[in-house]
């Protein structure tokens, strides 16, 4: 494995790991706040138990999210020093605000976790809300830094120099809104379905049905609403990507040829040598329609993009297909859920109904990883779209593959540890929270 590949893999691994914890860190406080609110209002102890059970899980996730985030803020420099040297002052603003938001989050978390029976109950509740709000704000800020890499703004690039820097313009670049929106919704969808799925499994196993049903209801409402909004926001993202990053967009669709009535491709295996796709289903004109709102305008294909500036087509394409497929599936179960609430109350206790959610447990997070693969791999070979190549940014230090192996080992161990701790947590629910 060469150093460049190792650096890319290490970055991808670290971000792919961090994103799971940060999604949970953004969304779980919101769930806890709701259950906490219900407890204060109804005095039903089950809600207090849910809040406390969740908060123990969240403390584990939060610590893991915080350390992996700390790693990331160093890794940007350890792996991509040349990128940070130029990009730091331009896209750094969101990171400085993010630092503030994290800080507030960490303070509020201190109050929240240690405040049971010590603080005024409403003050305690508000600290939980603050954790959630600052988590979401941090997510939005960091994504706006990433969107700058996709759609650079706020500087002029003249003769290899970065001049006229305007950090605020860089922060509010063209892509930030669509990316931040899509990411925030994704965090709610992924976490909502994951939490709902675990509680659905417990209901199926007939363990503490009362506790798990109440928890399930809180999580699924958010998951389902987010799943319905997700394709809409994805459409905005896709339109933006097509305009700003035609190479990424063409790779997502494995669209090799620029033709009028551009077809939308579903599935298929890209054949990179012969520049065609085998076994896909093509719907003529639909791609043109999705991008330009009319069926005729040709959508830029890979034939218009020099070979050396093309991303890896199969990876981008499969990742995109996977994300969209999961998006559609989650949309479907979200609709079933609301339909059941509205017309078919009896479904809400059926085994097949809960099985559906158990199947969906990991899907949201798989879609999150796939989506980031689309964004990041689709941007290659650029680290800053159209300005700096990833290969120009990498550290001169040799031997990065060993660092990559080390990170792989550490993240693997941490993942095992977190799963282990979580399963112990769930196993203890009857003992701790049943009377």
């Amino acid at each position, binding site marked *: 494995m060469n150093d460049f590949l190792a650096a890319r893999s290490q970055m991808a691994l670290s971000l792919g790991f961090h994103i799971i914890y940060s999604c949970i860190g953004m969304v779980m406080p919101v769930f806890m706040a709701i259950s906490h609110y219900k407890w204060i209002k109804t005095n039903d102890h089950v809600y207090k138990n849910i809040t406390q059970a969740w908060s*123990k899980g969240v*403390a*584990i996730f*939060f*610590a*893991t999210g*915080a*350390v*992996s985030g*700390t*790693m990331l*803020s*160093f890794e*940007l*420099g*350890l792996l991509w*020093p*040349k990128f*940070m*040297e130029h*990009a*730091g*002052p*331009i896209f*750094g*603003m969101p*990171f*400085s605000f*993010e*630092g*503030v938001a*994290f*800080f*507030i989050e*960490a*303070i*509020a*978390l*201190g*109050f929240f*976790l*240690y405040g049971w029976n010590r*603080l005024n109950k409403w003050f305690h509740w508000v600290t939980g809300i603050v954790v959630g709000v600052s988590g979401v704000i941090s997510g939005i800020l960091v994504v706006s830094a990433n969107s700058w890499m996709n759609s650079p703004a706020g500087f002029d690039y003249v003769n290899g120099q970065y001049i006229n*820097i305007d*950090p*605020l313009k860089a922060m509010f670049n063209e892509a930030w809104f669509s990316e931040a929106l899509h990411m925030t919704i994704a965090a709610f969808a992924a976490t909502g379905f994951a939490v709902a799925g675990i509680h659905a499994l417990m209901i199926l196993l007939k363990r503490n049905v009362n506790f798990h049903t109440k928890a399930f209801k809180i999580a699924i409402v958010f998951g389902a609403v987010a799943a319905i909004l997700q394709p809409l926001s994805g459409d905005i993202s896709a339109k933006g990507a097509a305009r700003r990053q035609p190479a990424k967009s063409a790779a997502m669709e494995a669209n090799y040829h620029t033709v009028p009535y551009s077809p939308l491709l579903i599935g298929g295996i890209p054949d990179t040598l012969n520049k065609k796709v085998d076994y896909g289903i093509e719907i003529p004109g639909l791609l043109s329609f999705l991008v330009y709102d009319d069926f005729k305008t040709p959508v830029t294909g890979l034939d218009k993009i020099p070979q050396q500036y093309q991303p890896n087509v199969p990876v981008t394409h499969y990742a995109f297909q996977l994300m969209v497929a999961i998006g559609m599936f989650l949309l479907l179960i979200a609709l079933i859920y609301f339909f059941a609430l509205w017309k078919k109350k009896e479904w809400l206790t059926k085994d097949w109904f809960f099985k559906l959610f158990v199947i969906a447990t990991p899907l949201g997070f798989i879609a999150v990883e796939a989506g980031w693969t689309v964004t990041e791999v689709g941007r290659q070979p650029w680290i800053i779209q159209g300005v700096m190549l990833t290969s120009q940014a990498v*550290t*001169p*230090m040799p*031997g990065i593959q060993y660092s990559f192996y*080390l990170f792989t080992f*550490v993240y693997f161990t*941490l993942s095992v*540890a977190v799963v282990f*701790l979580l399963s*112990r*947590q769930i*196993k*203890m629910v009857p003992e*701790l929270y049943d009377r």
Partner: protein
Amino acid sequence: MLYVVIGFLFFAIVLYFLLGGADFGAGIIELFTSDDNKSRTRHTSYQAIGPIWEANHMWLIIAIVILFVGFPVIYSEICTYLHIPLLIMLMGVTARGTAFSFRNYDAVKDDKMQNLYNHIFVYSSFITPLFLGITAGSVISRQVDPAADSFLTAFVFSWLNWFSVAVGFFTVALCGFLAAIYLIGEAKEQFDVKRFTKKAVIMNAAAVGFGGLVFLAAEVENVHLAHWIFGNPVSLTAVIAASVSLVLLWYLLSKGKTKVIRILAGFQVTMILVSVGYRHFPNVMMVKGGNNLSLLTNHAPAATINDLGWALLVGSLFILPALGYLYYSFQKKKEA
């Protein structure tokens, strides 16, 4: 605005050293506690650092963000040449942070797992400040060599030298000292007060010993440390103030004033940082060949520094009161 940003950078580093350092120190103290008393130490330190644990470590993030937004060249040079110690330090941060919260939030408290978490926690509490100190020492050691042509000279001897390593151990001793002093004030029983006092004495002696070694190593490695510290009135005053406060600290401790001595310990460490930092400011990174990196010339463009300064000023309006209230309310609750 540049000075505001530099001020915040220094402030963040000092606070990280004091708060994060005391936090590492709690683990170091635990490491050097006999098995019989380990769980007592653990209990006291959990009571002391539990709620503020996350917040203490945010100062590191703040310092790093200021560095890469405001002084990107310095950040990227440090990250390039000191890749290896930073990596080890990061592994320490990770192991420590996760072990600390796993041991508190594991739903089943069985000895086997608790033992494992404890081991990871204490050893990483030692490794992390050691390599943090090594990194800091290397930054001013003049051993970073941009003209190096072999892996060893560029990426290993930049930090594996007597001076950096001595600074590393000095840092560990200071962290242990800070924690011991802090824990004296937290201990409820006379038995523990005695134990922590003993630890403080040992750590104090270790700090003095390693401090001496730092000076020796500085001579060996050709770092003008003595000159920086004794060669100008400000640094000299800071060193004298640090020494006086140390004497005062031991005096007050003998009088049973277990809380005020914290301020003195913090003051003392701050003075050490001031005395070293003052003389070679604005050069934060001393490089072989004399091409030192100065904060005053290697900063981001004015627009960035301006926005960053405002973000920090406005941000601290939110953070500092909230943080103060966090410390205050848990202090009050503990006493009640």
